[in-house]
């Protein structure tokens, strides 16, 4: 292996992957909170439209959506996105739809009595959401968001298909140049694993801080998984809602 491989291809690729993950995660979080809260709206039309959005983007294949944004959008709407932003858009819209289910689930899991107490104190609906419901719901969202973030990180590899020079793209180039597939793919698999590990550690830190902020001790995961939590985000949302209803019936 030459030093040039790292300096010229892999390190810039890692940087692109980190940027992609970060931008897509921020975009997806905005979508998730927007859609997730809108799905609890009193207006049926808002619930219907946001529900439609979620079903469409959960039903979509992220890779197909990426190709669509990359090839069809410029032709259909005369608007060419920079590949990087087409990728962020595709990932953010898709994972935002998944994330909105987490947000909705966590909001629904806050004890109804908390809402009633907030009504009894004459908070406006917006104040109820901001001051009472969300501060309790957000710590419960972090573990499933962690899973989703790892899924998002893995999905960033798809962008290599639309010529964004991420880690996977760098590996392709390197393979073509050197012909050595084993080494390069082994290296980048480890790179992804390390990134996933770091992300998970960061999210754990966030979870601990968030839980401390509401007077709860952080939950120790006893089974000792090496990196991530075990269940799919959907199941974990349900699981955490069970925990809330069982434990926090204040």
């Amino acid at each position, binding site marked *: 292996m030459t030093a040039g491989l790292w300096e010229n291809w892999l390190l810039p690729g890692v940087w692109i992957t980190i940027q992609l993950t970060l931008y897509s995660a921020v975009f997806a979080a905005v979508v998730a909170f927007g859609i997730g809260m809108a799905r609890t709206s009193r207006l049926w039309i808002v619930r219907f439209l946001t529900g439609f959005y979620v079903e469409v983007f959960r039903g979509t294949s992220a890779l197909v959506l990426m190709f669509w944004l990359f090839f069809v959008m410029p032709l259909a709407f005369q608007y060419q996105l920079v590949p990087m932003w087409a990728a962020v858009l595709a990932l953010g819209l898709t994972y935002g739809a998944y994330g909105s289910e987490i947000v909705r689930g966590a909001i629904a899991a806050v*004890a109804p*009595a*908390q809402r*009633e*107490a*907030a*009504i*009894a*104190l*004459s*908070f*406006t*609906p917006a*104040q109820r959401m901001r*001051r*009472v419901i969300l*501060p*309790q719901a957000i710590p419960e969202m972090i573990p499933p968001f962690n899973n989703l973030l790892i899924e998002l990180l893995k999905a960033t590899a798809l962008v290599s298909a639309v010529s964004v020079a991420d880690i996977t793209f760098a590996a392709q180039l390197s393979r073509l140049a050197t012909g050595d597939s084993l080494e390069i793919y082994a290296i980048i698999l480890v790179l992804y694993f390390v990134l996933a590990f770091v992300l998970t550690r960061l999210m754990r830190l966030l979870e601990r801080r968030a839980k401390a*902020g*509401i*007077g*709860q001790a952080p939950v120790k995961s006893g089974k000792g998984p090496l990196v991530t939590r075990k269940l799919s985000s959907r199941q974990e949302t349900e699981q955490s809602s069970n925990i809330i209803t069982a434990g*926090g*019936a*204040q």
Partner: protein
Amino acid sequence: MATETDHTNPAVDGSELIRFDQVTKRFGSNTVLDNLDFSVSSGKHVTLIGPSGSGKTTILRLLMTLLKPDEGTIKVDGDYLTHEDKGGKLVPAGEKHTREVRKKIGMVFQQFNLFPNMRVLRNITEAPVHVLGLSKDEAETRARELLDLVGLGDKCDAYPTQLSGGQQQRVAIARALAMRPQVMLLDEVTSALDPELVAGVLDVLRDIAHTTDITMLCVTHEMNFARDISDDVLMFDAGRVIESGPPEKIFTEPEHERTREFLSAVL
């Protein structure tokens, strides 16, 4: 927002503060309140008693707008609660109108319902600051006074989960009082407490009943407490008031057969 900041107490002139007019509430095919009429005068302490399922708690939840009546109207201090008077016609009220009327009412819940994400002091100051528009300093000063009143002056910085049930309920009472309500609704406030913690909470409420002129509407199973603080006792059965009067009369010589049965079962 400044409407509630003048600190004069509501006039205790015996005027009608709460009025239910032909209120009906159904859950599915089950009629919980049946054409209910009743009123509470300003400054009075009224206790609702009756078998469970008789609609007592429903009255409190209607007043707190946690439920909407199917028929009839509710007035608080002369204003319609769930309706608005638009050019002589009654229309369902918007959120804003309802909130303005509801600000006169405070509620203490069976399960306390403190906000677990906020420390004790902030539980009490949050609504006065953000709903009534009090300054943070003023709200905190008031909150500390109220915590002293309920005997928890040293618990400002605790989280609710660090307190016993009785302490949580006393914080919840302080939180309701901090909104300077004209009416306090007490919904079986001791039912979720361990027996040895009940007395502390009732003492605080007795104190408030005897030293302030806040109107109180209580649902309780503590008959001694009801006898002690009530001006009036209303006996409920099957969605109707079947008997009412001063506690001495209801508890010693009830007229209605159902009242006698109920009292002999609980006393």
